[in-house]
């Protein structure tokens, strides 16, 4: 049983109570220093995850800052030896879902920044640009997008991704499979949305999906 990730997911939110007792006294000694060090080390990954989720770099970084604040406040819930990246991803994800409900990410995709990204790491795949990739990604329903980000980009196992999203492993596999199929179809038939159109599609899909995703998360909260 992959307890470390399960446990990491159990401490998924700074907002929700965690039944397990704290293992680390906050702000004390070696553990506090090590917490800060580990937290610092995952910031680049939090930024990458956030960027994938919500598009605009500045908004994504705000989300990371928010997640860091929550993680810091909840540091007594982090169990040393478990995955800091998984733990903080859960926090970031919950902050994202909360912000989504407040419509913070409406139509906020930053085309110019994405275009800059695409030319930086040389592409051997011809017409496929990273901005295309990102736009296509943003059209996916939120739960499929995050599943694909975690497994296909973040390198998490299905089990780890399931723990982060608080759902069954089979559910994650299904979401990743559907996301991959959708993106492959988009790439093959050239139906990648252009610019602002993608935002509208993405936002509608996200909002439609959010309630389902949120309900599922609550149902799974005890896992």
């Amino acid at each position, binding site marked *: 049983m992959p307890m470390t990730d399960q446990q990491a997911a159990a401490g998924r939110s700074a907002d929700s109570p965690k039944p397990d007792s704290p293992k680390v006294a906050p702000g004390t000694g070696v553990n506090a220093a090590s917490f800060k060090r580990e937290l610092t080390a995952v910031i680049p990954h939090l930024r990458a995850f956030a960027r994938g989720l919500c598009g605009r770099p500045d908004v994504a970084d705000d989300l990371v800052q928010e997640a860091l604040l929550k993680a810091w406040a909840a540091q007594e819930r982090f169990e040393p030896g478990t995955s800091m990246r998984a733990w903080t991803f859960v926090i970031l994800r919950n902050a994202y879902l909360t912000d989504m409900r407040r419509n913070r990410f409406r139509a906020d995709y930053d085309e110019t920044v994405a275009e800059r990204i695409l030319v930086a790491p040389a*592409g051997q795949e011809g017409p496929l640009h990273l901005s295309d990739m990102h736009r296509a990604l943003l059209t996916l329903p939120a739960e499929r997008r995050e599943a694909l980000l975690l497994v*296909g980009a*973040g390198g998490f196992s299905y089990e780890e991704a399931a723990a982060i999203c608080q759902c069954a492993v089979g559910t994650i596999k299904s979401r*990743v499979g559907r996301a*991959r199929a959708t993106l492959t179809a988009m790439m093959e038939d050239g139906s990648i949305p252009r610019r602002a159109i993608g935002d509208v599609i993405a936002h509608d899909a996200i909002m439609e999906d959010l309630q389902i995703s949120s309900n599922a998360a609550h149902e799974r909260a005890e896992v």
Partner: protein
Amino acid sequence: MKNIGPEPSKRGRQPTPDWASGLRRLYDSVVDEPLPDSFAKLLDDLDNADD
């Protein structure tokens, strides 16, 4: 940071599509960005506030 390749279980399902490496590059391109100072400052402020 490490670039983690596709998992065996994923490969078994279907061939890795052309865009899969793009997805990882999208992620890695952000991981590899220089970290804005604001993040270290935030943690330092939080750290100092705890003392």
